[in-house]
C-alpha cells in the first residue's frame, strides 16, 4: 500500500458526515465511541461519588460504639448499595468507558466495530443504574451485594428491595456482555496495518482479556440472580432447600462469576499501569511478552479459584485444598507483572508526574493487597479471617487501591487527550498524597480489627470489645480519602475550563492515541497510521500514514476512508487490509431498544404483564428496525473531496510524530 506523510483534512471536508446533530437529538442518537466513552466515565464517576458518600455515612455510624447515626435497616441498605454500586456501576463500566474511548485510538481505527451496539451498551448500563437507584424511593436492596440465598428469597426478604437488585444485575450484565463482544471484534478486526498482536499496547491486551473473561463469567451471575428471581417471582424452587433446592448452588454460580470479576476489574487496571509506567520511565515496558502472557494466564486461572470464597461452607477438605492451591498459583502472573514494572523503572528515567505517582502508589498498595491475598488463600487461615474485617481490608487494598488508584492515574494521564487540556499537576499531586495517606489510615487498621474478632457487615458494636479506637481511626481516614478524591473532582471541573492547552503528545508517550490531535477529531485519524513497531511514536519518526489504494480492500485506509465514513478492516493476526467497515450514522435505535428492555424489567419488577409485554414489543420493534434500516442508514456519501488527497491543511497540519521528543528512546521491534 502507498505511504503518505502527514496527511490531513479540514473539518469542513468531512465534518458534516461525522458531526452529531446538536443538542438533545445528538445526545440520544450519537454512536461516536469517544462521546460514549466519556459518557461512561462521567456516569461512573457520578456513581463513584454516591457510593463514596454512602461509605462515609457508614463510617460515621461505626466511628463510635453503639452509635445511633443509622438504624440497622438503613445501614444494611447502604452497605449493599455501596458494594453494588462500586462493582456494577463504577469499576466494571468505567473500565469499559476507558476501553471505549481508548481502544479505537490505540489500535489506529476510526470507531468501534459495532458503534450502534456500543451506544446500546451504554444506554443499558445507564438505565440499569437508574433502575437500581430508583429503589431509593421504595426501599433499597438490603441483602448484601452478593445476595446469598435463602436470605434474599421471598420468605426472608418479601419486599421489592431484592428484586431491584436481582433484576438490576441481570440488566447491567447485558451491557457488559454486549460491550465485551464489541471490544473483541474491534481488537481483532480493526487494528491498523502492521499492528500485529505482539505490537498491541498492553492496555488493549488487558481489555481483550477483560472481554473474554466477562463473556464467560457474566452468564453465571445472570443465572444465579435470574434463577433467584424465578424463585421469587414465579415460585420455582432452585434455591429452596425444603423443596429440594440447594443454597450452595447459588454460591457456586455467584462466585464462578465473582472471582473472575475481581480480575476483570484488576486486569485492565494493570493494563493502564503498563501504559503509564513506561511512558514516565522513558523506555519500553520490560518483558512485554511476559506481561501480555501474564494477563492471558490470569484470565484462565481466575476461573479456577472461586471456591476460596466458600471455605467456611463445610466442603470436603480435598476439594478445598485444590482451590487453595490454585489461589496460591494465581499470584505468579501478578508477580511477573510486578517485576516487569520494577525493571522498567529501574532501567528507565522516572518522571514523577501525577499519573506516575498514582502508579507508584498502586504498586505499594497492591503489594500489600497481594500479600494478604496469598494469606487468605491458605485454607486454615481463611477459616479465621473470612467474613472478618481482615478481608474487608484485603479486598479494599485490591479493589480500591489496585483498581481505583490506576483509574485515577488514567484520568490524569488521558485527560489531556480527551479534552485537550491538562489537569493541574499541583492539585493532582496534592490529591494523590491526600488519597494515599487517607487510604492507608482507613484500610490498614481493618486488618487488626479482623484479628480482634470484628465480623463484617455489622451496623454497630459494643463498647467493651476494644474496637472503638481503631474504628475511629478508620472513620477519620475515610474522610481524608474522600477529601483526596474531591480534590481530583474539583481539579477536573477547574481544568476543563482553565487547564493548560496541550499538543498531541504532552507526555512523550509511545502509542497511537498520542499521534492524533487532542481532543481527537470525530474520525480519529484522517489517514490510518502504518505501524512497524511496538512503540510507533518512539521508533517511527515521522509516523507514516496510509494512502488509499484502488482496490476495495485498501480504499478506506487514506483520507478517502475518513471522507466516506469508513474504517479499514484487517485480518486478525497479521493485519492485512481486507476491506472497509461503514460506520453507521447517529440513530435513536440503541436508546429505544435499551428503553424497551428497561420497560420489560419494570414490568417484571411490579409483576404487571401489560408493562412487560409493552417493553418486549418496543424492544422487538427496535431490533427489527435496526436490522431493517441498515441500508437506508448508510446513504452513499455525497460529499466531494475539495482538497487533493494527502495535502495538509495549514490549520490542522499534522506533523505526526513527536519529532521534538528526541530523548524518547525505544526498542525497534522486528
Amino acid at each position, binding site marked *: 500500500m502507498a505511504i503518505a506523510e502527514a496527511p490531513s483534512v479540514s473539518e469542513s471536508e468531512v465534518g458534516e458526515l461525522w458531526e452529531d446533530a446538536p443538542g438533545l437529538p445528538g445526545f440520544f442518537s450519537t454512536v461516536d465511541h469517544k462521546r460514549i466513552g466519556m459518557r461512561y466515565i462521567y456516569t461512573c464517576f457520578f456513581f463513584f461519588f454516591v457510593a463514596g458518600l454512602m461509605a462515609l455515612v457508614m463510617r460515621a455510624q461505626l466511628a463510635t460504639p453503639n452509635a445511633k447515626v443509622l*438504624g*440497622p*435497616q438503613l445501614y*444494611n441498605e447502604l452497605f449493599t448499595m455501596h458494594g453494588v454500586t462500586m462493582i456494577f456501576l463504577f469499576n466494571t463500566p468505567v473500565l469499559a468507558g476507558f476501553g471505549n474511548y481508548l481502544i479505537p485510538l490505540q489500535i489506529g481505527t476510526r470507531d468501534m466495530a459495532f458503534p450502534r451496539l456500543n451506544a446500546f451498551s451504554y444506554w443499558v448500563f445507564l438505565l440499569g443504574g437508574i433502575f437500581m437507584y430508583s429503589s431509593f424511593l421504595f426501599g433499597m436492596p438490603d441483602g448484601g451485594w452478593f445476595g*446469598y440465598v*435463602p*436470605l434474599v428469597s421471598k420468605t426472608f426478604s418479601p419486599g421489592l428491595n431484592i428484586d431491584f437488585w436481582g433484576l438490576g444485575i441481570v440488566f447491567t450484565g447485558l451491557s457488559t456482555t454486549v460491550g465485551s463482544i464489541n471490544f473483541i471484534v474491534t481488537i481483532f478486526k480493526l487494528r491498523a496495518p502492521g499492528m500485529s498482536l505482539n505490537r498491541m499496547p498492553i492496555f488493549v491486551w488487558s481489555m481483550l482479556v477483560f472481554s473474554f473473561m466477562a463473556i464467560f463469567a457474566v452468564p453465571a451471575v445472570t443465572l444465579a440472580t435470574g434463577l433467584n428471581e424465578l424463585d421469587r417471582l414465579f415460585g420455582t424452587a432452585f434455591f429452596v*432447600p*425444603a423443596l429440594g*433446592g440447594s*443454597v*450452595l448452588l447459588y454460591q457456586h454460580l455467584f462466585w464462578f462469576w465473582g472471582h473472575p470479576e475481581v480480575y476483570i476489574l484488576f486486569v485492565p487496571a494493570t493494563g493502564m499501569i503498563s501504559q503509564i509506567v513506561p511512558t514516565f520511565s522513558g*523506555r519500553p515496558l*520490560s518483558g512485554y511478552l*511476559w506481561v501480555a502472557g501474564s494477563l492471558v494466564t490470569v484470565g484462565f486461572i481466575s476461573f479456577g479459584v472461586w471456591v476460596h470464597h466458600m471455605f*467456611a*461452607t*463445610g466442603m470436603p*477438605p480435598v476439594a*478445598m*485444598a485444590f482451590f*487453595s*492451591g490454585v489461589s*496460591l498459583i494465581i*499470584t*505468579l502472573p501478578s*508477580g511477573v507483572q510486578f*517485576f*516487569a514494572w*520494577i*525493571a522498567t*523503572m*529501574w*532501567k*528507565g*528515567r522516572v518522571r514523577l508526574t501525577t499519573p506516575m505517582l498514582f502508579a*507508584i502508589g498502586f504498586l505499594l498498595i497492591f*503489594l*500489600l493487597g497481594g*500479600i494478604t491475598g*496469598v*494469606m487468605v488463600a*491458605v*485454607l*486454615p487461615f*481463611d*477459616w*479465621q*479471617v473470612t*467474613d*472478618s474485617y481482615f478481608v474487608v481490608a484485603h479486598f479494599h487494598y485490591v479493589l480500591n487501591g489496585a483498581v481505583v488508584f490506576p483509574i485515577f492515574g488514567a484520568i490524569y494521564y488521558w485527560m489531556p487527550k480527551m479534552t485537550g487540556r491538562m489537569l493541574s499537576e499541583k492539585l493532582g499531586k496534592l490529591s494523590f498524597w491526600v488519597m494515599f495517606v487517607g487510604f492507608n489510615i482507613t484500610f490498614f487498621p481493618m486488618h487488626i480489627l479482623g*484479628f*480482634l*474478632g470484628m*465480623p463484617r*457487615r455489622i*451496623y*454497630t458494636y459494643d463498647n467493651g470489645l476494644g474496637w472503638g479506637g481503631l474504628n475511629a481511626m478508620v472513620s477519620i481516614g475515610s474522610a481524608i480519602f474522600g477529601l483526596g478524591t474531591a480534590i481530583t473532582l474539583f481539579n477536573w471541573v477547574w481544568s476543563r475550563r482553565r487547564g493548560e492547552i496541550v499538543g498531541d503528545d504532552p507526555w512523550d508517550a509511545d502509542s497511537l492515541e498520542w499521534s492524533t490531535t487532542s481532543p481527537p477529531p470525530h474520525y480519529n485519524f484522517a489517514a490510518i497510521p502504518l505501524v512497524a513497531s511496538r512503540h510507533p511514536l518512539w521508533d517511527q519518526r515521522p509516523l507514516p500514514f496510509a494512502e488509499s489504494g484502488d482496490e476495495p480492500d485498501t480504499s478506506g485506509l487514506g483520507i478517502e476512508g475518513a471522507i466516506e465514513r469508513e474504517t479499514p478492516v484487517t485480518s486478525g493476526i497479521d493485519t492485512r487490509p481486507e476491506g472497509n467497515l461503514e460506520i453507521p450514522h447517529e440513530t435513536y435505535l440503541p436508546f429505544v431498544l435499551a428503553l424497551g428492555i428497561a420497560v420489560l424489567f419494570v414490568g417484571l419488577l411490579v409483576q404487571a404483564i401489560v408493562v412487560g409485554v409493552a417493553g418486549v414489543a418496543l424492544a422487538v420493534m427496535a431490533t427489527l428496525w435496526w436490522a431493517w434500516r441498515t441500508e437506508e442508514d448508510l446513504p452513499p456519501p455525497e460529499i466531494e473531496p475539495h482538497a487533493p488527497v494527502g495535502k495538509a491543511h495549514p490549520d490542522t497540519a499534522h506533523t505526526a510524530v513527536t519529532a521534538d521528543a528526541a*530523548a524518547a528512546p*525505544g526498542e525497534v521491534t522486528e
Partner: protein
Amino acid sequence: MLNGRAGEANRVAGVWWLMFAMATVVYVVVAAFIVIAVVRGRKKKRSEGAASAGGDSGPKDDTFIWFGGIIAPVLILGVLAVVTVNTTEVLRKPQQNELLIQVTGKRWWWDIRYPADKVTTADEIHIPVGRPIDIELTSDNVIHSFWVPQLAGKVDTIPGQVNHLRLKAIDPGTYRGECAEYCGIEHAHMSFTVIADTPVDFDRWMTRRRGIAGLAPTSDEMAQGQLVFTREACAGCHTVKGTQATGTVGPDLSDFGSRRSIASLTVANTSANLSRWIADPESIKPGNLMPPTALSDADRAAVVAYLEGLK
C-alpha cells in the same frame, strides 16, 4: 484470634506468624526495589535514559522477572502450600471421645443442644476443657456462620446441610463468639458465649441442667410468673422444661436465669433489662422477631422474677 485458647486457633495463629514473617520480608524487599528504582531513575541524566534500550549496565530485564516474579514466589508459595495441606489435615479430623453439641443458627440467636444429655439452651455453650468437641452446625432459616476467634476458625450454618467444627479448649475461660455471615437486619446482634469449664465444673453444670426440668417455683411471685408465662403469648414461642410452655420459635428458656445476656449479648441479663425487653423488644434490638407483650406491671414483674429464678 491470635490470643488462642484452643488447639485449632493456636495452630492457625502459628500459621499467621509464619506468614507474617515472610510477608514482612517480602514487603520490605519489594518496596525497597520500588523506591530504589524510582530514585535511581530520577537521578539519571536525560541522555542516559535514552541509552537504556539495550546497551546499559546492570541486570537484564528478564533477570528481574525470573527472580522476583517466578523463582522467589514459587519458593514462598511452595512453603505455604505444604503448611496449608498439613494444617488442614490435622484440624477438623474426627477424634476419640468427642462431646457432640448441636448448634442451630436462628434469626438472630443460637439454639444449643447436648443430645446425649437431652439438654437445650441458647446463646451460651459450656464445654469441658481438654475434651474434643464436635459442634454440629445447621440452620432452618438463612445462612449464619459460627465463629469463636479464640477457639477456632468459622464454619457456616447452612439450611439443608449439616457441618462440623472440631475444637478442644486448653484453658478455662469465657470466649465471645459472633455470627460472621450476614444474615439480615440484626446480624450485628447475634453473638454468643462459649464457657470452657474444668471437667468438674462442666459436670456440675450439666447435672444441674439435667435436673432443671423438676424445678418448682420457689416464691409466690415466681409461681404467679409461671402462671402468666404459660397463660400469655410467651408459651407459644418459648419452652420451659417441665411446664406447659413448649413453643419452639424462640429460645428455650429453661435455664434463663443463669444466662449472662438477653437477646444474644445485646444487653446484660438484669431484671430491669428483661422487663424492658418483654414490654418493648424493638427498643433493645430493632428488627428482632419477638413481638411486644402487653402485661400489667405486676404480671410483668412476676414473669421477670420467674424467668430470673430459672437457674
